[in-house]
């Protein structure tokens, strides 16, 4: 087979054989090497979070990939194909002009102030007059997860990307990675147990907030999310107790200790 090995001759058959074998093997190795070096490049240039989200998004269940305009009736049942990043979406502006079809009321007891913008991973963003923005867990998110035992916040100076990992929190064996609502640089941490978790300097320009929900649209989405939470919990042995249409308790974790919180939190915070 190889020059120098007993039985090899520089005959056409051997040359064709050797080159075909070498070609295939080198294509295979080059493919692996290219993938490896591109991975290194992506990780170094900070694109890892965005790419990981891309893969996660593909694997999300169908009902978690609905377009934002599906909730208020502008585009019923439409699936998002851009990883919840409406900043460059061509159809988002068109749908935004369509009148909502369904009346929206916020579920009882939940607070979603109009001053805040909301992200599909249950975080809110509050732009500040100084050009920074505060980030925290929204009301439903806070009720689902309750008081975390451990919170791992990114160090100031860390660059966040939209839908990338913002911070981790753990409680009672359940562990979630909270998705970042903004692209920007972490400036400061909030007080432990306080309203906001991160102060971020967002990317410049108007498009920085275009993908976030607000007002009636946010309320429609929260409605759908509450329903989804009910369905998630209803299939548990204790779930039936919840489906009474009443107000959500402040700490669901405590109220339903036997529910599969790892699963439910992962689903609510768009973890795979």
């Amino acid at each position, binding site marked *: *087979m*190889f020059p120098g*090995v*007993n*039985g090899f001759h520089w005959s056409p*058959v*051997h040359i*064709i*054989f050797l080159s075909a*074998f070498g070609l*295939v*093997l080198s*294509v*295979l190795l080059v*493919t*692996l090497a*290219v*993938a*490896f070096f*591109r*991975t290194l490049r*992506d*990780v170094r240039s900070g*694109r*890892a*979070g965005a*790419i*990981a989200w*891309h*893969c*996660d998004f593909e*694997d*999300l*269940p*169908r009902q*978690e990939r609905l377009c934002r305009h599906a909730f208020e009736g502008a585009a019923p049942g439409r699936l998002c194909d851009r990883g919840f990043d409406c900043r460059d979406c061509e159809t988002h502006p068109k749908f935004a002009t369509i009148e909502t079809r369904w009346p929206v009321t916020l579920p009882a007891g939940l607070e979603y102030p109009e001053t805040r913008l909301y992200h599909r991973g249950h975080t809110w963003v509050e732009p500040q007059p100084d050009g920074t923005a505060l980030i925290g867990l929204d009301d439903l998110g806070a009720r689902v997860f309750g008081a975390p035992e451990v919170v791992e916040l990114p160090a100031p100076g860390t660059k966040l990307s939209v839908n990338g*990992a913002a911070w981790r929190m753990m409680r009672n064996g359940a562990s979630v990675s909270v998705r970042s609502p903004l692209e920007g640089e972490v400036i400061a941490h909030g007080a432990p147990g306080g309203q906001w978790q991160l102060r971020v300097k967002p990317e410049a320009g108007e498009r920085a907030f275009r993908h976030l929900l607000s007002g009636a649209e946010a309320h429609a989405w929260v409605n759908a999310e509450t329903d989804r939470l009910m369905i998630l919990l209803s*299939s*548990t042995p204790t779930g039936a107790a919840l489906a009474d249409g009443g107000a959500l308790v402040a700490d669901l974790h405590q109220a339903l200790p*036997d*529910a*599969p919180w*790892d*699963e439910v939190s*992962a*689903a609510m915070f768009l*973890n*795979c």
Partner: protein
Amino acid sequence: MADMAWVPTTMLDRKFVPRGVTRCTPARFSLWLTPWCLLLGLGLWAAYLCLRDGLLHTNMDNRFAFGLWIFLDLAIIAFGGGAFFSGVLLYFFKLKELNAVIRSAVLIGFLCYSGAVTVLAIDVGQPLRAWFTFWHPNAHSMLTEVTFCITLYLCVLAVEYLPVLLRNRQFRKIPSFLVFEWELHKLIPVLAGIGAFLSFFHQGSLGGLYGVLRGRPFAFRESFGIWPTTFFLFVLSAMAVGPSFLLIMTRVAEWVTRKRLVLESVYVRLARVSGWMLTFYVLLKSIDTMVWLNSTSRRGGFLPWEYYSWEPFGVWILFVEIGLFGFVPALWLMRAGKVNTSWLIAPALLACAGVALNRYVLTVQTLSLATLPFDEFLSYTPSWQEVAVFGGVVAYGVIVYSVLYRYTRLFPQEQER
């Protein structure tokens, strides 16, 4: 593998199961695996016996130098052809429906090939000398081509399957794994391309294996260049039967898990592709048979009726292979979409049976027939060790498939129901 309404909190392996799908309890899963593990154990024991004492544990002999294993190897490699053909259809002919089964197809391909190589290592009996073929290959031998292509293709399949594995819930917690998966996935068409190239040659050279045997007039065929017609017929039949096998395996998986794993349209697409390829193959196979009976064989001094004068290998075998297992499923599969989809498994099974019969005829029947005029027709019954080795390989396939079904997302459409 079976159904479950909810994954209980107490489930030990809950953290490895993909989110959004339901899986049975570990206890039930273990119960499902137990018989397969026993079968695997029996196979390993038989393999150990063969490697310890030599092949006297088999019923092969100097006349039946190739036995059960060559038939089964040829058959399961033909079935595994679905892996490369689906890749080609998906990435080059853009049949997007096949995205629903491509991961399963690649895994089935990998299992078929690795299983075949394992059986080969046991039934050749000298795994320690396997490197001889790579170091001193005879470039004129069909078996050399087979060895090289299968080894390389096994590597390609392993790399192709890597992305699915990296999407396991625990692996994906390491962000660079997902990034690697994403980057590799962008390059998959390259791998599908070389996979198709390799498959073309080894499916073909497996056919050539018998077609070049000048000393076995029953198997010897006319050649185009260096390749006998069986080279091309094997490639075509693997392409024809690959999608059918995939259809069967997906149906079986649906039956075992009691879930709908893919949309009906995927079955229709698989069946149609299979039907068209099968029609093409059976037509060429008929022409080849006529040429062989009337020209090739007579030139070597052998009259065609002589081959079929031995019971039970009568002429019926030819009609069953080409007619019942050829044209019938071909026409049926081509009408997919117009006929009841849930019945498509029947023609798919017929098509697979036809290709298996083709491999059987070319291997076992060839060896049974004597070439010398005074020699006898011989029969051969595999020993329990031979059967057990093969059973072990089947068990290996089922176990790996079940485990990976449980812990990775083999069917992307599973969650959408």
